[in-house]
């Protein structure tokens, strides 16, 4: 029993320096997740701002922008990510699978993050905006100093859910020939003929998401200082 385990681990990890392949896969996984996360946050903030600004406004430019943003979230959330990646990968303008991943995962994450931010902004009591405005602060300044800090605190759990999901979803990048962690594990499996490489990949994903959860707890603790002694 013990011997079998050591044998399969040796084959899955040590033979032909296979451990390096996991690291290479992990590198791509992390790169895709990090770039997509950054793109997602930027798009998320912009789209959420447009939606919030358009609310109750008669401005035709804002209304048009709002429609565009609605269409974006509807299409992205309404179609499978794999299909989105396959479409992007087929476009002539996109040079390789990795670029398609950056754009695809980024756009996808942006749609979800924008909804998270929008709900976060709307979760802040309307009285906070009124109090800020009554002091002579502009709408933008009130947003920045009063509403957004409270909104971010409210959406932290949902935001980290999204990032954790994003890390795991990068495992489908293999569909468009990107050698991320899962794809690498699959490559190794085709030589070892057992499922040990997948177990190792699963363990690495678990470590990644566990670290993200720890980070979330730390940030939440920092934000919680204003609730002390409540």
């Amino acid at each position, binding site marked *: 029993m013990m011997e079998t385990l050591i044998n399969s681990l040796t084959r899955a990890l040590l033979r032909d320096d296979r451990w390096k392949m996991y690291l290479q896969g992990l590198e791509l996984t992390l790169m895709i997740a990090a770039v997509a996360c950054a793109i997602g946050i930027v798009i998320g903030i912009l789209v959420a701002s447009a939606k919030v600004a358009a609310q109750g406004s008669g401005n035709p430019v804002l209304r048009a922008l709002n429609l565009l943003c609605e269409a974006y979230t509807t299409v992205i959330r309404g179609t499978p990510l794999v299909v989105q990646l396959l479409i992007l990968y087929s476009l002539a303008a996109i040079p390789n699978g990795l670029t398609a991943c950056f754009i695809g995962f980024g756009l996808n994450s942006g749609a979800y993050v924008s909804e998270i931010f929008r709900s976060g902004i709307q979760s802040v*009591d309307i*009285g*906070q905006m*009124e*109090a*800020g*405005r*009554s*002091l*002579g*602060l*502009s709408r933008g*300044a009130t947003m920045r*100093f*009063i509403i957004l*800090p*409270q909104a971010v*605190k409210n959406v932290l759990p949902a935001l980290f859910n999204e990032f954790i999901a994003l890390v795991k979803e990068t495992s489908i990048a293999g569909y468009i020939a990107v050698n991320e962690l899962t794809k690498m594990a699959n490559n190794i499996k085709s030589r070892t003929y057992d499922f040990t490489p997948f177990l190792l990949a699963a363990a690495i994903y678990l470590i990644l998401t566990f670290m993200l959860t720890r980070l979330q707890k730390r940030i939440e603790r920092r934000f919680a*200082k*204003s*609730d*002390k*002694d*409540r």
Partner: protein
Amino acid sequence: MIRTVDLRKRFGKLDVLNGISEHIEQSEKVAIIGPSGSGKSTFLRCLNLLDIPTSGEVWFDGKNITDPRCDADATRRLIGMVFQHFNLFPNMTILENITLAPVRLRLKSKEEADRAALALLERIGLADKANAYSATLSGGQKQRVAIVRALAMEPKLMLFDEPTSALDPELVGEVLDVMKDLAMSGMTMLVITHEMAFARDASDRVIFMDGGLIVEQSSPDVLLSNPRHARTRQFLQRLLQEA
């Protein structure tokens, strides 16, 4: 000081203000009473443009502030407002609540603003709470801080929208005391209130509103003990029964 001309406000199909023309003098303290839904709050919120009037004008300090070319943010700096639910910023300390606007609007340096805020907190007996968060304060303390936060902008006019309605009865007094002090200092004040004792003792004039109109107004003695209109009598009677 502030004057309205045929002020009207409609929300969708609902007419909330039906033409209010009123003038409040410098240093005057005016109490506004009336049943809920009578338009008191909307009237107050139109004065600092938190609600934009559907028609009519508001003149403040010789300027038509309902003119779209008038800078609403600049106007609001001069008009303080205190809300029923305090609306302190929970993500900031009490001191930061008070200094945020003066510092961000570059009216004061951080040091000046801190000093002024501490002096104001001293005045209401809450200097020891400067670095606390609002979640640790009682309702009465929150409302006193909210008043001071508005005062830190050195406004010319203070609007109070039912400042004691959300408070436990035993906390009402401390807030009214701060408001009375403020009244003594000569501040121009418009106060929506259900505290008839405050209206009687601290105001120069009481306005009774109903149906989006000013039904009647006069000195507190006359209006509270000898109202002319049946609507006013009815309202005061119900208020007495509830008390």
